[in-house]
């Protein structure tokens, strides 16, 4: 992302404290996360919460960020724009944010799982990678023979 680009995300937003502005969405959301986490612990069932579908008040998103905070693990993927994956300070609760090339959020998820799917190498990509590697080995072999 180019920090100097004319981007809406460059407009600073200051989170207001719960005392001054709250409609109570964060408490409800945290309770839902706890329920999902309990299911993961007891049955292994994973869960997802789509933050884009929730009507959060201005400032509440930032409040949620502050509450969940960053844990031990973070990763960044470059695939048609960046994706940020962080494990929150509650292990098993992952915050997965997909951006487009201009840095706008296109999907924003809380995943309750041991490892988000997007981090794993996809089988099709692995096959493509294998073909590329074999082609490279074949090229190298041909070059060696040509030199002999």
């Amino acid at each position, binding site marked *: 992302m180019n920090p100097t680009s004319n981007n809406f995300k460059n407009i600073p937003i200051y989170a207001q404290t719960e005392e001054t502005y709250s409609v109570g969405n964060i408490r409800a959301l945290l309770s839902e996360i706890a329920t999902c986490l309990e299911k993961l612990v007891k049955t292994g069932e994973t869960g997802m919460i789509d933050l884009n579908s929730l009507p*959060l008040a*201005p400032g509440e998103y930032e409040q949620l960020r502050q509450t969940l905070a960053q844990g031990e693990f973070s990763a960044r993927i470059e695939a*048609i*724009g960046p994706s940020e994956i962080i494990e929150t300070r509650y292990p098993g609760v992952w915050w997965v944010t997909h951006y*487009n090339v201009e840095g706008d959020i*296109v999907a924003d998820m809380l995943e309750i799982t041991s490892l988000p*799917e997007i981090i794993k190498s996809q089988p099709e*990509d692995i096959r493509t990678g294998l073909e590329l590697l074999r082609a490279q080995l074949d090229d190298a072999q041909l070059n060696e023979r040509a030199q002999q």
Partner: protein
Amino acid sequence: MNEHETPGHGTLGERLAQQGISRRAFLKFCTAMASLMALPPGTATAIAEALVKSKRPSVIWLSFQECTGCTESLTRSDTPTLENMIFDMISLDYHHTLQAASGYGAEKSREDAMQNFFGKYLLVVDGSIPMHDGGVYSTIAGRTNLDLLQEAAKGAAAIIAVGTCAAFGGIPNAKPNPTGAVAVSDIIKDKPIINISGCPPIPVVITGVLAHYLTFGALPELDDLGRPKSFYGETIHDRCYRRPFYDQGKFAKTFDDEGARNGWCLFELGCKGPTTHNACATTKWNGGTSFPIESGHGCLGCSEPHFWDAGSFYSALSMPASPLELGTDAAVAGVAAGIAVSIANRVKKGAAKSAHEKTTIADLEK
């Protein structure tokens, strides 16, 4: 000729591979699509599996009596790469604003697509269709919009009416409607029509509907106005972050009072959120920055039929929406009262005559 013989109409998976787009990147796109379509967040992998195998359908896009705002909404969206993946999902064979061809060449590409993919292509329409005076108020290549629509609709698998003009007649249809503008559904009765209303519609809704069609091979579930329920199933009011203030009875009374500064509900300032079905409150605009209510202005109700004629944008929904009709009612009541007075006066006049009393003008005016 069938789709297998036509270059550029293979599967989406082939197209993505040609462009070097990884499956992980596509999975990311599908996660965004699942979020948009209000499908369970975990379905992205299944959507990706279905989409890569799907054939890219031919799409013919006809623009009629419109302002080009709908096309602008789609092509100038703030998320170019992901949303423009729509152009990888489809083969856009005719769009007179976007295509390079012009004149006879442009019209030929439309005719070729209609012939080669008869019964299979998707027809997208933006703009209303003028009906007065033989439809002369809007023509393309010398042909009326009505003529072009009826011809293209015959071979369409489905029609997508993009924007409030195509869906419900929109602003051209507003009183006094000098061109006799009507919606697509007023003319075409024998094809499935999906209405993506809004002035303009949210761009990702167009992408989402196409993704749904490709994933499931059918149009999404529609509401009673032909709009996809996943985007139009709830009102702006239902999903508004200011809704708790409505429930608490906290309303802004002017645009600069304390209530407005505290972000209270804009109902009394004319917000049409309670009667407007759209996804603005969650999808938002300008790359997810905000939507009108978040910027301090009430919803205009642009995705509903006749929104331009539904009274002032600044009158609360609880106020009478149509003063003209009330005026008529009042006039009827006035005439009735006048007749009653007239009868009463005639009786009085008759009584005075029989009693030889003098009737004054003041008596008649009572």
